[in-house]
């Protein structure tokens, strides 16, 4: 693919190519529209399914050894919080590691300010950075500075009501129960390879993986730390009990028989399904301006210029094999203002 000035514009529809929306899942402030597809490209694995060896060799350098025959795609903003006396690290961008290859990324970030030590080679539980940190992480993706995310983590912790410090584990420990629940609440469905995530009735992210197996392996990290953290923040601001989201229709009170109840449930399910489809439809023409960051193993990693979405896309020629597109905070704030009720007295 030829990039003119290393830039290219695509639409969200291109990211969703080959997918159809599944039944919307809705719990509290969060809704998830699964993206299901018959397309499943098993040439690529995540660090979780590929059992990648993870390690740090210096502060700010995160390494991956890919032991398998498939190309390893390290998800955008993958991170590792380890139990050993070593500094937790996260990626500032996505990464590609050739089959049976090893690669170190010196643009990685320390996410545990006052801890020394390097992560020993091994397999560890992966996370994806909380939504609130991802935009900043992407902005500094090309800087080689191990402490480049500390200030953002500190602000994030303070916003969440925790000690202001560059320690992501403070947040993870404090909200462990809530984060764990998101994993059980939002389930993978058969043939799922992606999702559109809504929080408080706004689309906050579009995610796509190369295959169902890849998706299954990264979904707990996305729903737990990345988007779950945002739902927790919204619950802090608006109260624990979410109002019924606009995507939901409550059952009417005047149902007289089981037959009627059965048909009402089916009709509401149909309406909710249509609403989910409309949500996807509204996104399709959204433009994404991509800048190519690098090419490895025939794959190009491209960064979305912040607009409605930020994030990264990985392509194999014209085929989009991976996309992680969190909505920008500015767009969400502007949209909330624009959709607020007009003044009336």
């Amino acid at each position, binding site marked *: 693919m030829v990039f003119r000035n290393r830039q290219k514009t695509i639409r969200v529809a291109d990211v969703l190519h080959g997918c159809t929306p599944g*039944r*919307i*899942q*809705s719990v509290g402030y969060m809704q998830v529209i699964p993206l299901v597809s018959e397309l499943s490209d098993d040439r690529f694995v995540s660090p979780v399914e590929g059992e990648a060896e993870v390690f740090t060799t210096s502060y700010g350098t995160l390494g991956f050894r890919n032991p398998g025959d498939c190309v390893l795609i390290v998800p955008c903003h993958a991170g590792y919080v380890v139990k050993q006396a070593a500094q937790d690290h996260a990626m500032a961008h996505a990464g590609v590691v050739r089959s049976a290859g090893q690669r170190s990324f010196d643009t990685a970030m320390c996410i545990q300010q006052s801890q020394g030590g390097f992560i020993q080679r091994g397999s560890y539980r992966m996370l994806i950075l909380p939504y609130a940190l991802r935009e900043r992480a992407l902005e500094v993706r090309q800087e080689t500075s191990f402490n480049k995310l500390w200030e953002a983590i500190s602000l994030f912790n303070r916003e969440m009501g925790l000690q202001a410090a560059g320690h992501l584990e403070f947040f993870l420990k404090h909200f462990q129960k809530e984060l764990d629940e998101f994993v*059980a609440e939002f*389930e993978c469905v058969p043939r799922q390879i992606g999702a559109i995530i809504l929080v408080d009735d706004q689309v906050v992210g579009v995610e796509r993986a190369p295959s169902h197996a890849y998706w299954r392996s990264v979904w707990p990290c996305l729903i737990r730390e990345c988007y779950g953290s945002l739902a927790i923040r919204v619950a802090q601001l608006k109260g624990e009990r979410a109002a019924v989201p606009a995507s939901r229709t409550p059952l009417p009170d005047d149902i007289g028989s089981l037959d009627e109840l*059965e048909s009402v*449930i089916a009709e509401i399910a149909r309406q909710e399904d249509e609403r989910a489809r409309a949500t996807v439809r509204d996104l399709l023409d959204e433009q994404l301006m991509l800048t190519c960051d690098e090419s490895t193993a025939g794959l190009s990693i491209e960064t979305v210029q912040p607009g409605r979405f930020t994030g990264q896309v990985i392509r194999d020629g014209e085929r989009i094999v991976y996309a992680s597109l969190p909505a920008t905070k500015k767009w969400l704030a502007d949209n909330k203002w624009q959709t607020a009720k007009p003044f009336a007295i």
Partner: protein
Amino acid sequence: MPFTSASRNRDQIHELLRKAQATAQRLLVRFEHAGILLDVSASMFGHETQARRPISVALALRDLLAETAERVTIVTNDGRAAPAAELIEPAGDTSLAAGLVALLKREPDVVFVLTDGYENAPAGRFAEVVRAVRRMGVETPFHQFSPVFAAEARGIRVLSESVAGLPVNKPEAIGLGLLKVLFEADVDRGAAALLGMVRPAMEGKRDVRRIEEVKHGVS
């Protein structure tokens, strides 16, 4: 036990059914028509450290409860009528509301909901349906049984505040829980079952093992 092929596991299924029958006989609790709503969604796979434990406990409970009733209707959360003794791989989202209505149309005298309590398509719809059917005058007792690890025995996630939830660690040890259910469904039959349990002790033929098992039925 792997869920690869039902035919391959036929002997094991037969053995599990035999165990369910034997355990049900010891319970001394009987229902006329039990409705079982079985959650087979992806979250019933459980945590990878004890993979498939929730679904295993739920399937064992299903078979046990089926043996306590003269007639049983089993419906899965995806709305499928399911026979007893079928091994099911958990998958998909959780919508239990339509399954509850489908069960109630068959007029069971009790409904057991076997679930981890995580409903998402959408969350709260089951509770809405419970309120709706109560407004209609349907009084069938509903009971939620949720598979738990021993350490989680408190604080299960209930689908509806008006549906009692019972944590289950070992399906073979739900004696008192079932007795309570029977009392709620039919006081006379509940009293008869209780009498059946304690009469041997009163008559000096006390089977300590059986009483102890029942006593520890509620986790």
